[in-house]
């Protein structure tokens, strides 16, 4: 380049960059504007939600208020309101002149006070200043002189000018007195005014309260308050911040209606002219279960602990709801909403608040009922084995503690003997004494732990039958057919389908057959099938079992459908089973790992008797498993009844038992080892007792926190891509597709919900396309669940999460609510809900049986207020022996309601279960424990006469329906014997029952309206017997006292006098004493359990 040459064009001055700058400016300004817009709107989509909510809610409130005002106006025309209003007006009018007068006096007094006050306060200030001066002066002479000044000042006359113009002069003391007097006068006037206004204000309050109680919507005033609130709303983030639980939920920034005190539905919040609600309407609803929010205050619980989602996010709906890849807790879908309950309610078996809780409770129930916990551990299920281990350790520690204490005590005593000071010796001796007492306490605790471990052993149950007894129970040839596909034989069985091949079936059945017990069963007499059918349908079997298939099916689904029992079962076994399902062929000794037989007992010279009173192993004294691990109770049936029912059930078949193909391969010893392998492989021992496999562990994965497993750890296998991208449905079988709660997939389903639902619908779906050997294939059997059941279980699993909430959020109450929590586990375990109603509206299985449609009063009683009804001590006795007969030969009846055909069974509850159940009922009715019966005042002779007159009056013929113990009468009785009341009932409840039984047990045969309130006391609503007409107190209370003090003699006398011609007693072939011949060998062997009630 030549030097000094000036470039032709100076790039600085000649080239225009205007275009560049313009572009840059546009871009910069554009960015600035975009940033501003984004800051104001883009990042704040919730603002729009708030604005729309404000508009629509304002419109809604306007309309609601005018309607509420109309409704209020209507109510104001109601005579009741008019009466209240008149009362108010007249009170107001009558007091008005006096009120006005007092008000005027008050005004005058106030003016006078003001006049005096202005002078007085001024002077008082001066006086106080002088006094202070004197107090702080150190020189006595100066003090004296100042005192003189003060006295002089106080003696001065001060002039007060009153409002009426009068002028008066007072010295300081008079001034002070005048001022105080005036104030007193004003106070008295105020008091008078208050007394005058009190009735007026009360009348006004009564009137306004009446309106409030009769108005179905919010009153117009309250609605106006809401209107003001929403009108003054400035857009802002609404946030719940709970520091202790690390909850920051901004959900209400969009969902502004959530906590509004009016019910806002999407339809109400849809703008006019639109058919379907838009996203704003959907977001603007109030919480559909306001009661739930009352229990779970959102300011404490926030939203996300129940609903999940990303509570902090505010930038988009997807972000806030957590529906994006990296958020681990997406919002629960509507169908699985109740998964959120599990976050804190893991310890509950049953929860309900309003209409919420059904799905999750069903899931919790199914997990046990379908035997899921046989393979999968889940915290809280099957607590017994773990607790047993725990107790064993505790006992060991305590025994060690006892030894240590003894050692310490002996050291202390030795020291005491050698010490010089008496004080020291006494101190040491006292210490030794305390240690020995401590040991006694520990001994008591150990005793209780021992009893508890006994209970725990009894509480352990298996969902499937004991397979050690297949030889006694089953038709051999039926077993392989059943194993092939249980649902082919029994469509609703709990037993899942295992997809076994022929080799596996043969091996498994051979193992079971060859290891089963071969003890002979006692031969049973045949019965009458027709009578058996009637008994089967009336004694209560149908609360758990069903019979008939398809549309003919009746009964509950808690236990097996017995439609084809005749094809598979042996008569003698079924007889023993129905008589008492807890009877075992041989007791099992867990210590020796063997079934103990008569030979073991004989060796020790002991009789072959094992039951709860004889539960120690003859060989080594260890605790035996003496009962079947079934929850099925005994109905305390007489032997002939048992035979009838068994005979009837054995007639239930589609084909003959002999028509099954021969399966003699089951005796082939070569198959046994392979059979054991497959049984272990499939975890059969999780649900069944199987010889040689009693101590098998669970084969499945633990599910306690399955819902929070990272999605990568859920093995979608080859379906991962399918689930992630296309959302194609891998299940092709239309019948199985039917089970999917959301139908065949039409969107990506690579999430927990999708995994669980597919797994539950078709457990081996994730084997699709895989090349696996038989032992590598997915083992989970097909539980053939219905759509709703899959939804419930999926909900349960989705909620099974590790939570970040502090432990205090877990619902593990320490008070009576824990009794409720624990009680539900037992109630659901034994299917008490199959017969009894525990919560209003709950359906029972037995009430669906056609024969009860027209005879609801013959159903088992409702237990809605059981804890308030019965004395807990009585309940304890009743639950352990519902026949309430002390004599073991008189067990074949109901204790309280002998008039019902349906029986309250004997469940052989363990002590632990009894304790929990009694506490459960008391807690459910908010009754404190222990119960202290209130002393009943003895009836005077006159009172007895009056009460008797009412008791026997033609208008309230109590003994017409209530049993008396007279067999002729009791045949037509439909209510319990009054003689039970004293021990069984609580008097307060009894009175409430007399007044309105329908409020306690809706649908009861006992009529309502027997008593009415008259002049402040409860009187009989019908024609009152003359002797009673002047009785000053509640007649209901009198009658209750009479019932509680009723003697058998009195009742017998009254019942004999009752206007009744004895109905000709029909000869009953099965009266309750026919069971006295029931001492069969099996029964005797188990008599300790059957007669347990007697010894309690």
């Amino acid at each position, binding site marked *: 380049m030549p030097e000094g040459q000036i470039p032709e064009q100076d790039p600085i001055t000649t080239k*225009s960059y*205007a*275009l560049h700058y*313009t572009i840059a*400016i*546009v871009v910069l*300004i*554009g960015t600035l*504007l975009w940033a501003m*817009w984004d800051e*104001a709107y883009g990042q704040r989509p919730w603002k*729009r939600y708030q*604005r*729309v909510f404000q*508009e*629509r809610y304002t*419109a*809604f409130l306007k*309309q*609601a208020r005018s*309607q509420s005002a109309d*409704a209020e106006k209507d109510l104001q025309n109601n005579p009741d309101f008019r009466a209240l209003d008149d009362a108010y007006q007249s009170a107001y009018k009558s007091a008005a002149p006096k009120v006005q007068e007092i008000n005027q006096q008050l005004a005058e007094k106030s003016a006078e006070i003001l006049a005096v006050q202005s002078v007085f306060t001024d002077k008082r200030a001066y006086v106080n200043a002088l006094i202070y001066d004197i107090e702080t002066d150190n020189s006595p002479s100066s003090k004296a002189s100042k005192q003189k000044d003060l006295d002089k000042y106080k003696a001065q006359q001060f002039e007060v000018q009153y409002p009426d113009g009068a002028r008066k002069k007072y010295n300081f003391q008079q001034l002070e007195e005048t001022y105080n007097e005036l104030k007193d006068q004003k106070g008295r006037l105020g008091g008078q005014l208050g007394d005058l206004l009190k009735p007026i204000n009360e009348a006004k309050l009564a009137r306004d309260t009446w309106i409030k109680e009769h108005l*179905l*919507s919010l009153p117009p005033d309250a609605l106006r308050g809401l209107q003001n609130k929403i009108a003054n709303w400035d857009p802002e983030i609404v946030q719940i911040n709970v520091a202790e639980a690390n909850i920051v939920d901004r959900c209400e920034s969009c969902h502004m209606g959530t906590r509004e005190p009016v019910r806002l539905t999407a*339809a*109400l*919040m*849809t*703008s*006019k002219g639109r058919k379907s609600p838009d996203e704003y309407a959907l977001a603007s609803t109030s919480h559909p279960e306001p009661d739930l929010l009352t229990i779970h205050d959102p300011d404490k619980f926030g939203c996300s602990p129940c609903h999940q989602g990303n509570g902090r996010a505010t930038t988009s709906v997807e972000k806030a709801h957590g529906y994006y890849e990296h958020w681990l807790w997406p919002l629960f879908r509507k169908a699985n909403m109740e998964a959120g309950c599990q976050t804190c309610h893991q310890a509950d078996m049953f929860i309900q608040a309003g209409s919420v809780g059904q799905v999750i409770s069903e899931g919790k129930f199914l997990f046990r009922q379908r035997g899921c916990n046989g393979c999968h551990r889940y915290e809280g299920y099957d607590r017994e084995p773990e607790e047993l281990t725990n107790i064993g350790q505790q006992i060991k520690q305590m025994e060690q503690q006892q030894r240590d204490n003894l050692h310490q005590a002996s050291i202390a005593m030795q020291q005491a003997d050698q010490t010089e000071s008496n004080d020291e010796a006494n101190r040491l001796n006292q210490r030794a004494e305390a240690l020995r007492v401590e040991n006694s306490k520990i001994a008591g605790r150990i005793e209780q732990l021992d009893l508890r471990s006994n209970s725990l052993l009894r509480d352990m149950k298996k969902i499937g039958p004991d397979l050690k007894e297949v030889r006694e129970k089953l038709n051999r040839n039926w077993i392989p057919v059943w194993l092939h596909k249980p649902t082919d034989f029994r469509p609703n069985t709990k037993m899942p389908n295992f997809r076994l091949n022929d080799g596996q079936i043969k091996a498994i059945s051979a193992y079971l057959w060859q290891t089963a017990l071969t003890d002979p069963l006692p031969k049973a007499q045949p019965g009458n099938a027709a009578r058996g059918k009637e008994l089967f349908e009336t004694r209560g079997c149908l609360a758990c079992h069903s019979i008939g298939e398809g549309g003919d099916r009746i009964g509950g689904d808690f236990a097996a459908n017995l439609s084809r029992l005749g094809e598979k079962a042996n008569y003698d076994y079924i007889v023993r089973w129905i008589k008492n399902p807890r009877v075992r062929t041989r007791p099992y000794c867990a210590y020796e790992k063997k079934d103990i037989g008569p030979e073991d007992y004989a060796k020790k010279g002991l009789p072959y008797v094992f039951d709860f009173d004889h539960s120690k192993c003859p060989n080594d004294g260890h605790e035996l498993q003496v009962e079947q691990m079934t929850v099925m109770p005994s109905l305390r049936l007489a032997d002939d009844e048992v035979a009838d029912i068994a005979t009837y059930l054995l007639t239930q078949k589609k084909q003959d038992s002999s028509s099954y193909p021969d399966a003699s391969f089951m005796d082939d010893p070569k198959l046994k080892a392979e059979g054991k392998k497959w049984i272990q492989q499939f975890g059969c021992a999780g649900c069944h007792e199987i010889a040689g496999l009693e101590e098998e562990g669970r084969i499945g994965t633990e599910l306690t926190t399955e819902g929070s497993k990272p999605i990568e750890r859920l093995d979608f296998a080859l379906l991962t891509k399918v689930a992630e991208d296309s959302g194609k449905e891998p299940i092709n079988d239309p019948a199985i597709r039917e089970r999917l709660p959301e139908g065949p997939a039409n969107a990506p389903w690579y999430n927990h919900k999708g995994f669980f639902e597919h797994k539950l619908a078709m457990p081996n779906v994730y084997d699709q396309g895989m090349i696996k050997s038989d032992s590598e294939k997915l083992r989970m059997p097909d539980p053939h669940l219905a759509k709703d059941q899959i939804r419930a279980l999926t909900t349960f699993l989705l909620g099974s999460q590790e939570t970040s909430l502090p432990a205090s959020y877990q619902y593990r109450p320490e008070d009576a609510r824990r009794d409720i929590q624990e009680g539900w586990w037992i109630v659901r375990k034994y299917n008490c809900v199959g017969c009894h109603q525990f919560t209003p509206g709950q359906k029972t299985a037995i009430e669906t049986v056609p024969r009860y449609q*027209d005879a*609801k*009063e013959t159903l088992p009683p409702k237990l809605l207020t059981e804890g308030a009804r019965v004395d807990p001590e009585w309940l304890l006795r009743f639950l352990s022996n519902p026949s309430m007969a002390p004599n073991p030969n008189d067990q074949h009846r109901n204790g309280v309601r002998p008039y019902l055909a349906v029986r309250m069974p004997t469940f052989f509850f363990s002590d632990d279960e009894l304790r929990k159940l009694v506490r459960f009922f008391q807690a459910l009715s908010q009754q404190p424990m222990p119960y202290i019966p209130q002393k009943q005042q003895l009836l005077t002779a006159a009172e007895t006469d009056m009460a008797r007159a009412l008791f026997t009056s*033609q*208008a*309230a*013929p109590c003994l*017409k*329906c209530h049993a008396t113990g007279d067999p002729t009468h009791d045949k*037509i009785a*439909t209510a319990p014997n009054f003689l039970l009341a004293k021990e069984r009932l609580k008097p307060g409840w009894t009175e409430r029952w007399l007044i309105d*039984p*329908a409020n306690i047990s*809706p*649908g*009861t*045969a*006992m*009529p*309502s*309206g*027997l008593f009415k309130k008259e002049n402040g006391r409860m009187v009989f*609503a*019908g*024609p009152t017997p003359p002797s009673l007409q002047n009785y000053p107190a509640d007649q209901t209370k009198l009658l209750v006292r009479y019932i509680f003090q009723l003697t058998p003699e009195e009742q017998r006398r009254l019942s004999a006098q009752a*206007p*009744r*011609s004895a*109905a*000709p007693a029909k000869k009953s072939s099965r009266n309750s004493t026919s069971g006295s011949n029931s001492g069969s060998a099996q029964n005797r062997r188990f008599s300790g359990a059957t007669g347990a009630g007697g010894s309690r």
Partner: protein
Amino acid sequence: MKIRSTVVLLALAVLGLLLLSACGKKEEQASTKPVEQAAPAAAPATPIDQATVGSISGTVKYAGAAPKPAKIDMSQDPACKGDNTVETLVVNSGNLENAFVYVKDGLGSRTFDVPKQAVTLDQKGCRYHPHVLGIMTGQTLSVINSDPTTHNIHPTPKDNREWNESQPPKATPIDKTFAREEIMLPVKCNQHPWMKMYINVVKSPYFAVTDKDGKYALKGLPPGKYTVAVVQEKLGEQTQEVTVSPKEAKTADFTMKASQ
């Protein structure tokens, strides 16, 4: 340069306007749907042109051997006087008594005035009179007790509210209404297990209970096409399509038989 800056300014202005308009787009005026009234007042009756009304009448027969009415043993309460027979199936020479006939369908959304007078149910001789009755929704049922013994009246409805009240001899009548339609609503007395009757609650006045001769009549029907149903406690339901022309008196006979 000047032109350029003007262009830039213009462009900026346009951009600004665009943005402004985008921000300021107003949400269309929202307003809410009318709130449903909690309890709507009874709608006024749809007017019927009395000049054109017709009627449906007929006989309900029973096919098959009439069962002999079984006698009821009332000895458990001596206050129950007289003879009483089972009324579940009452047939007089082939004619079915106590069947309930009503217009089940075809009235559309018509509404009707509820009669002011009450329907009476009497308990006499420990027996309900009548054994089957029809009543309109909202109409008063007045239960009286003419017996010298106490009864309790216990309806066990499916769709209405259940109640159970005691009624001593000579007590004041129990007045009740039923809010919802329900056919064959059973009523019983728990103290006299044989006592049973059925109430039929319907929305229209076009119903009848067959008399001794199995006859019924539905009068004052506006012309139209109707489904007439006959219901009997044991025999179930039977329906017929009947078209009534103006002023026409149609006949519709039914024959019922035991379901098996």
